[in-house]
């Protein structure tokens, strides 16, 4: 195959196999080593590079972690430890438990039983919002993230970012040392270096100190930072994150005169209107809970179904779930909101109604018909006016207190982040900054282009710049000092969920690379000598909970994963008679460019997490790249095809990028995802995709008008995982996803059912599965599935599934055991979309089994289609004969067998497959076996719901149900007995154990005549 644009050859794709990043400054070693005579002998590269830490290590004889090992260590364990820690200099004592007491989750035994995992509650934070999680720990090695099923913000669900954070912990490219101008230094050296400047600042009341953080909701960290500001009253704390909620904040200020957090209660909403809000995908605060509440109301057999209208400027999975979707340019949505507000007589001065009036009227009628049970959600990318309009309309409809509640902000420092950064850059340029501490974030990469942050950082003459981060990234490169940050799974902290509930972040493992937490760095700034984040967090909460029962309180909080009574109370706010003015966005001519957070990489911070790079974006199924998404009509006008290279020009700034034709985009609007094209992400993320931040200005952070698109004539290889995104073929549509409207379903409940071929219609004798104790089966409710991809990452993490890289993905060799197909129906400019997760269907008459010449795939008595990896010789006949194409083959050695970090990450209960072996979904057979053993020991049966597959556990929408079909009372049996249940490709008589529940749409009759669908 040709390798366009000099892409890496396929031999070079396995990301773990590329040469290790050379972090040692060997080139400059001459400057540090004394001139010597005679031959030089050196014990390691560190010594050769004159690394002081090496000398310290030699002096101390043993690495720090080893000599501080407090527990009794067996001789064998000691030798192992020694060899490991000396071999992996810098990676000290890998499987060491943190020294401070952490409390295991109640579901699991208090004491460690070898081979049995323990679960600890902690929380993953993104954009200031926590995802409460339980972390599975095997012998003190965290291996898997699961949702905290007791936490109201999770209810067991997570999102892809939380799921993939386990790979972030073990990422070998994470920054592993403190560096000063690229040379390895110690924490002590940093303390020394910072001591002088801090003393100087003390005299100036800290006038030269600037702290830049990302959005912070952590009460303890905010307290620490405020303590710093108390010591240095003139110092300033700036906040910036590229994917920020400035619009939400300003919208709230516009509507209520104060910053408030808006929280939705979707379970109470019968009619939901999203104004460009992508609230059903990871990265939206509260996503897991919203998906749960939304899906709960999508069951046509239980209560009334909700109805979702989505007006949006790009194609999102939220739009895919809409009963009615209206693609509008982002700038037109404000006009739509005004027209709607006019229709609802919300007091806003209705602008000229140029929008599709029918849609506005229908939505308005529907909303008016559901006062108190309707909901309008404005998207983060929409200007404050739209948010204010949404607030006003929710007020008018009487939704406040029912479907929408207001609280104090979760953000500890709710400021306008654009302005905050702008102010900082001005001061940096003005020479007012003497000490800049960047605590996380990567502004040199992701700040608005017009600020010139990187330039100000590099050339602003700031005498001391310190960066704390997980990676030695673009910003670290421009700072004097880089401090390697401890991952959230290896450090203490606290954070707040979308509802304000505080979770204590407890570490699962001692820092792999001796990283420091922001709490510790902040404490140093505040003057503490030897800070310890555990002590800081505990001290903070002791202040909040001074009673004698603090110990109990602390243990309970760690155990549950949240601190009781910390949810933000609802707040009564009254709308100001806001003058929203007239529509600020006049009809913008030309093509509009929307910037969006990347569904897989967020703002770019996850660029080096291979699972996420290779995670297909929910609508385009694109991996490893973020092409310019362009609608079919516009592409036709510009004569563009997918994979063509274009030059985007916006205000004189130009970027070359590939395009991808995406169904459902509004006309004259293109979308780009931020977060790719990193230059210092690591071996996985560096160079993947295109960096669109240079086009993004502070004036137009989300939508820019007047972008020029010029084809360059080149083409670019893009790796899309889905062959076709339509069920139509020239000889008729295939009934893969079955759909009916609610009315049709009421009239004909069995519309999805096929005539099943008789069971005896096979050459081979049947097996009496019904007489076994268990018959495992799965039902996937396509109506609940929101296409959030969470199951894919959960499966990848649980089952040690490798990534394969862009070239191999492009060839179709991705390894996901479970895929989520996205199908479009109808007009490509206004399509309907459906999601279909497809794991192995575990056919009873499995066509893969009869064709395997070596019996490597066989059936278990419980109905599982088992893979025997040891026996597989790799003929791939089973995959050819699999009608669902769920089998995955190790065409090359995709698994990284060498990197020590990955060895720690893997699930010890699942075989790590090698080259030349077929693999596929096993219904998480390792979990079944674990529960079966327990049940047999207790002489009982596995109870329904007690055993969950990884995909099922992670699903925030509860769309996947797994259980025993021989138990008529099990949830899965009941679902399969329902009307909507159907088998995929039933006419092949393969008798799949995985079945689907058909999609039931709930259209508004005003907008969709019942006869419209055939």
């Amino acid at each position, binding site marked *: *195959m040709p390798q366009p644009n000099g892409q890496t050859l*396929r*031999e070079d794709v396995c990301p773990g196999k590329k040469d290790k990043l050379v972090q040692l400054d060997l080139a400059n070693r001459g400057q540090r080593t004394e001139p010597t005579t005679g031959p030089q002998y050196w014990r390691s590269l560190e010594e050769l590079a004159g690394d002081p830490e090496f000398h310290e290590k030699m002096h101390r004889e043993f690495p720090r972690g080893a000599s501080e090992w407090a527990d009794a260590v067996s001789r064998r364990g000691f030798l192992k430890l020694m060899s490991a820690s000396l071999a992996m200099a810098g990676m000290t004592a890998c499987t060491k438990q943190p020294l401070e007491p952490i409390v295991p989750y109640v579901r699991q035994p208090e004491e460690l039983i070898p081979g049995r995992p323990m679960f600890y509650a902690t929380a993953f934070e993104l954009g200031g919002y926590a995802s409460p999680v339980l972390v599975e720990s095997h012998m003190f090695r965290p291996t898997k993230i699961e949702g905290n099923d007791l936490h109201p913000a999770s209810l067991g669900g997570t999102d892809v970012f939380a799921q993939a954070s386990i790979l972030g912990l073990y990422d070998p490219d994470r920054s592993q040392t403190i560096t000063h101008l690229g040379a390895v230094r110690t924490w002590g050296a940093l303390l020394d270096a910072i001591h002088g400047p801090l003393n100087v600042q003390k005299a100036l009341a800290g006038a030269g100190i600037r702290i830049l953080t990302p959005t912070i909701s952590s009460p303890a960290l905010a307290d620490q930072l405020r303590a710093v500001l108390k010591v240095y009253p003139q110092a300033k704390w700036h906040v910036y994150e590229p994917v920020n909620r400035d619009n939400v904040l300003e919208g709230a200020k516009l509507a209520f005169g104060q910053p408030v957090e808006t929280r939705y209660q979707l379970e109470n909403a019968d009619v939901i209107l999203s104004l460009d809000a992508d609230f059903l995908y990871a990265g939206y605060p509260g996503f897991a809970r919203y998906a749960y509440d939304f899906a709960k109301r999508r069951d046509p057999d239980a209560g009334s179904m909700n109805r979702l209208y989505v007006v949006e400027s790009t194609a999102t999975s939220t739009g895919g779930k809409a009963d009615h979707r209206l693609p509008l340019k982002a700038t037109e949505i404000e006009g739509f909101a005004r027209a709607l507000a006019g229709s609802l007589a919300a007091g806003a001065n209705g602008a000229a109604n140029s929008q599709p009036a029918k849609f506005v009227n229908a939505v308005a009628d529907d909303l008016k018909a559901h006062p108190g049970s309707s909901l309008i959600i404005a998207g983060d990318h929409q200007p404050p006016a739209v948010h204010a309009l949404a607030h006003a309309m929710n007020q008018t409809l009487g939704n406040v207190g029912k479907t929408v509640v207001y609280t104090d902000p979760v953000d500890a420092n709710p400021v306008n982040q654009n302005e905050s950064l702008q102010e900082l850059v001005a001061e940096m340029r003005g020479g007012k900054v003497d000490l800049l501490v960047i605590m996380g974030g990567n502004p040199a990469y992701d700040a608005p282009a017009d600020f010139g942050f990187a330039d100000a950082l590099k050339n602003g003459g700031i005498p001391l710049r310190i960066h704390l981060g997980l990676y030695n990234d673009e910003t670290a490169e421009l700072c004097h000092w880089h401090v390697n940050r401890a991952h959230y799974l290896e450090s203490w902290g606290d954070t707040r969920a979308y509802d304000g509930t505080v979770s204590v972040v407890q570490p699962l493992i001692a820092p792999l690379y001796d990283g420091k937490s922001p709490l510790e760095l902040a404490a140093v700034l505040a003057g503490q000598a030897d800070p310890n984040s555990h002590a800081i967090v505990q001290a903070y909460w002791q202040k909040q909970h001074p009673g004698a029962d603090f110990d109990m309180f602390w243990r309970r909080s760690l155990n549950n994963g949240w601190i009781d009574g910390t949810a933000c109370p609802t707040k009564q706010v009254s709308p100001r008679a806001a003058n929203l003015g007239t529509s600020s966005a006049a009809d913008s001519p030309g093509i509009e460019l929307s910037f969006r957070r990347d569904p897989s990489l967020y703002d770019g911070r996850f660029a080096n997490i291979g699972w996420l790079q290779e995670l297909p974006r929910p609508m385009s199924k694109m991996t490893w790249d973020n092409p310019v998404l362009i609608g079919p009509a516009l592409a036709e006008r510009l004569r563009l095809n997918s994979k063509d290279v274009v030059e985007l020009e916006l205000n004189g700034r130009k970027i070359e990028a590939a395009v991808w034709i995406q169904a459902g985009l509004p006309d004259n609007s293109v979308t780009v995802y931020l977060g790719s094209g990193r230059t210092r992400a690591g071996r996985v993320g560096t160079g993947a995709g295109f960096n669109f931040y240079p086009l993004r200005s502070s004036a137009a952070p989300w939508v820019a008008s007047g972008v020029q698109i010029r084809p360059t004539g080149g083409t670019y290889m893009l790796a899309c995982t*889905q*062959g*076709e*995104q*339509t*069920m139509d*073929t*020239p*000889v*008729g549509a*295939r009934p*893969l996803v079955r759909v009916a409207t609610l009315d049709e379903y009421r009239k004909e409940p069995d519309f999805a059912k096929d005539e099943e071929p008789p069971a005896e219609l096979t050459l*081979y004798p049947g097996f009496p599965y019904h007489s076994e104790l268990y018959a495992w089966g799965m039902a996937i409710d396509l109506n609940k599935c929101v296409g959030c991809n969470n199951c894919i990452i959960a499966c990848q993490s649980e089952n040690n599934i490798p990534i394969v890289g862009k070239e*191999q993905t492009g*060839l*179709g*060799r991705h390894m996901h055991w479970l*895929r989520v*197909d996205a*199908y479009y129906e109808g007009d490509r400019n206004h399509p309907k979309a459906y999601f*279909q997760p*497809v794991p192995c269907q575990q056919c009873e008459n499995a*066509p893969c089994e*009869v*064709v*395997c*010449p*070596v*019996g490597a795939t066989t059936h278990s008595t419980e109905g599982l289609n088992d893979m025997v990896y040891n*026996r*597989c*010789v*790799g*003929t*791939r*006949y089973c*995959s*050819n*004969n699999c*009608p*669902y*194409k769920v*089998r*995955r*083959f*190790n*065409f*090359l*050695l995709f698994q990284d067998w060498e990197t020590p970090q990955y060895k720690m990450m893997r699930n010890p209960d699942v075989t790590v497959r090698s*080259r*030349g*072996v*077929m693999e596929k979904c096993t219904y998480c057979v390792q979990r079944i076996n674990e529960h079966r053993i327990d049940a047999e020991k207790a002489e009982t049966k596995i109870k329904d719901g007690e055993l969950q597959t990884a995909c099922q556990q992670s699903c925030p929408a509860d769309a996947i149900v797994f259980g025993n079909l021989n138990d008529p009372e099990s949830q899965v049996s009941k679902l399969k007995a329902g009307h909507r249940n159907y088998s995929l*490709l039933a006419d*092949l008589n*393969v008798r799949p154990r995985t079945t689907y529940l058909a999609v039931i749409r709930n259209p508004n009759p005003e907008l969709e005549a019942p006869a419209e669908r055939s």
Partner: protein
Amino acid sequence: MSDEPVAIRSDRAPVIEPGHTFATVTDKISSIVLTRPTSTGWLVGFGISFLLTMMMLYAIGYLFVRGIGIWGVTIPIGWGFAIVNFVWWIGIGHAGTLISAILLLLRQSWRNSINRFAEAMTLFAVSCAGVFPLIHVGRPWLAYWLFPYPNTMNYWPQFRSPLVWDVFAVSTYATISLVFWFIGLIPDLATLRDRSENHWARIIYGMLAMGWRGSARHWHRYETAYLLLAGLATPLVLSVHTVVSFDFAIGIVPGWHTTIFPPYFVAGAIYSGFAMVLMLAIPIRKFYGLEDFITERHLQNSAKVMLATGLIVGYGYIMEAFMGWYSGNRYEAFTLWNRLHGPYAFWYYMLLTCNLVIPQLLWIRKLRTSPVALFLLSAVILVGMWLERFIIVVVSLSRDFQNSSWGMYYPTRWDWMTFIGTIGMFLAAMFLFCRILPMISIFEMRTLLPEAEVKE
């Protein structure tokens, strides 16, 4: 020299040109091996094919080091060039067995001129075919697990899989072909032993001749054994490709799951096999001056077999298309549509052109007797039959039941190197064969002479 004419119909060319005696036949054929100097042409031809063989070994070596990911196979197209080439080579081999066994039983004496090298061709084609099943598996070092053998792993093949049937079909075929070929060589090896002047050649030919003295008892046993082996080989002509076709027909992939496959595959095998026989016979008779032994009659007969089997294959195509429509199965119908309009449509039309349209020229007698035209037509048919296997294997797999999992197959340079390498290996073996063994059966040719007619 007898003046009795050979009993042939006057409108047919003779199977052996008049004027030959036992001695001239023996001299002519044995001299190619024993006295004729090695020509430059032979050296160049052998050199090139040897280099191609080395290229194949290199490609296979790299394959073993890296894994089959160096090929173009992927999900959903789990089988690519390897299986296409396997089926193609196995098919080619069939003509040799047909000629040597079935035509022997049917007493088609014209076969005597071409059966020896046709059998050799079978053997070499099966060797080329045999390379692929071994190397195409993900873990070739475990490929022996397909054989049932006593072991301590409690391991036994899964006999419902057509791949296991394949193992038996192909290994039986290879064994019978080898034995049949070797038994047939014994009297001629003895002739070479007796006529050779080189000491080492005499020893080697002598060992291979297994003490053949040409006694009546030898001949009696030889004839019986040969006939028995012919009887054993005959069903193989039909069974081997039938089993190979089961690899596909047993699968549920639309485009594979077809009951017409066994006869259609067998006809296709003989079709391509005769094309290969002609592609070898025409240059050989030219370069070694064997026009007297491989006559126009042989060319004509081979052409007629090709025409007949080609029509059977064409019937197969028509039936496949008909069933795509008649079955009313949406997946079958789509497979037909995809062949006609999908991304590989060009190759489907190429296949129809090569296998169905162009071979109709064989109806013209003038072309049937023209060596150049037949050579070119045979080349076209071989390309067409290769494309047929490509269409069946790759195009069917590329778009099956799940639209989301459709894919495309792009062969890599390693695919091509392995494929072209096996052609090199085949030719290298043929060159060696021509050089060191009698490429036409001397004693069987002698039976065609008028002298051999036993007068009552």
